[in-house]
């Protein structure tokens, strides 16, 4: 039962029937239910945290193959496509400087390109104008 000894002002006014079901005054048999739920949620959270940690630890090992691949090929691939058949820019912005749809007659059609619009990694095209850098090397 909630007492009034050291409680803040708002808790002090509690006047509740003695048999009102709270976590501490319901019978032990029934008390196991909330406890089971609480421990269950706690264990599920710990399981999720442990699984994430374990997965992150194995990430470094998995990455070594990827790094060796990129060094040998001089950097290949950038976007959410595994071939050039869809929108080549989505495979690699270095392979095509603009969206395939945007190169058509319809202005703004890059917004219709499903390889960008529904993509998990959308990026802008590389600006074509090399004038962004001056001939003396300054930007």
């Amino acid at each position, binding site marked *: 039962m*909630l007492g009034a000894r*050291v409680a*803040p002002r*708002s*808790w002090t*006014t*509690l*006047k509740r029937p003695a048999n009102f079901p*709270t976590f*501490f005054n319901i019978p032990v048999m029934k008390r196991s*239910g*909330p406890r089971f*739920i609480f421990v269950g949620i706690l264990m599920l*959270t710990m399981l*999720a945290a442990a*699984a*994430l940690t374990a*997965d992150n630890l194995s990430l470094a090992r*998995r990455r070594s*193959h*990827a790094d*060796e*691949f*990129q060094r*040998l*090929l*001089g*950097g290949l*691939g*950038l*976007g*959410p*496509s*595994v*071939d*050039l*058949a*869809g929108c080549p820019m989505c*495979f*690699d912005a*270095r*392979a*095509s*400087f*603009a969206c395939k749809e945007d*190169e058509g007659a319809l202005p703004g059609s890059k917004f219709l390109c499903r*390889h960008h*619009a*529904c*993509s*998990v*990694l*959308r990026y802008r095209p590389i600006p*074509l104008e*090399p004038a962004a*850098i*001056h001939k003396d*090397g*300054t*930007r």
Partner: protein
Amino acid sequence: MTKFIEIAGTGVTAILLHPWRSAVTAGAVTVVLLPYLVCLGLSHGLRLEAESSIQLGADLYVSGIQFGHKVPIPLVAKSQIERIDGVTEVVPRIVGAIAIGRNRESAVVVGMPVDRFATGASFLEGRLPGQNSVNELVLGSELAHRLNLKLDSRIPPFYQNAQGEKVSSVVGIFRPDAPVWQANLILTTLTTAAAIFNQEGLVNDFLVYCRPGYEDHVRAKVLETVSYRAQGSSGGPRPMVIQRTDLTAVLPTGLLGQQGVFELHFVLVFAVGILVVLVTSGLGLSERRREIGILKATGWQTDEILFRSLVEGCLLSLAAAALAIVLGLVWLRVFNGFWIAGVFLYGAGVSPAFRVPFVLAPAPALLTVLIALVVVMTGSIYSTWRAATASPAEAMR
């Protein structure tokens, strides 16, 4: 302190007062969160791979541009770039698309100089291609699977060349855990790639490696001095130089970098999720309103009722987020992003034959917990507050 714990305890009890309501709330939030977490994980994994592609790639990519389009450039221009001060290595590269096999599977052919393949490679089974009487190819794991090709398989001529075609041999297959862009790759020598496309003497890019600090200077010099024009011709492509910084600049930044339309979809889904919780947690559940009315009638204050509801909501959202994380991990690691990878990665099938890249910790997982809290809390706290501020008689009606 004991009071807080006691009231928190009643929050746990409240989960069991309406077990079906609690299960539906946690279940609905999990269902909403799971695809979001998986997509966010895919996006982060892909971005990590893209960053490694930029960082471990060449310092500069020199190519040609004509009428606003990227065009092939003559291989002979290599010597012009090699002469520039600060350049340590120039590697010509061919990257092109072909369709191969009975079902016209799309593949990406990458050709590089044979001396580049002198070392071994741990990211493939077999070996790197060499110069031989047959075309030696290394195939991507997805392509090899689709074409049903194994190591040492022979492929009859699949291209047309004025000098004649050759039989090709599969000397290597990329391991599934190499980067995703290996999936439909055909890696071969520069000579073989040029023969496949019947474009001898042309390449797509020069990968230029410079001494540290020389990148801007080399870029300026390439733009100034390199010419792809044939002698006596006034037209032709002009040089285009891409620097590492240009590539880094196009990648989305931040936790919620532009992940496309799916972000918009999920904003809508979360809005509906809040409404679902709103209905299940009081506005639509008269029993729950009555329960709050009884608590008020027996002396509970509004803030106590809100605290009780907060604990209940916190536990439900934690359960939903944790369940979504565990299921998301199983979906991506054990089932390798079955179906969902094909939705967001163009060219990946329903069951990809390559390791789908993903990173779930820490940002996507934390965001999942946060969204679960927002969805559950917004839904439940409002309805609890509405019921708790009404007079007990009205709430119990």
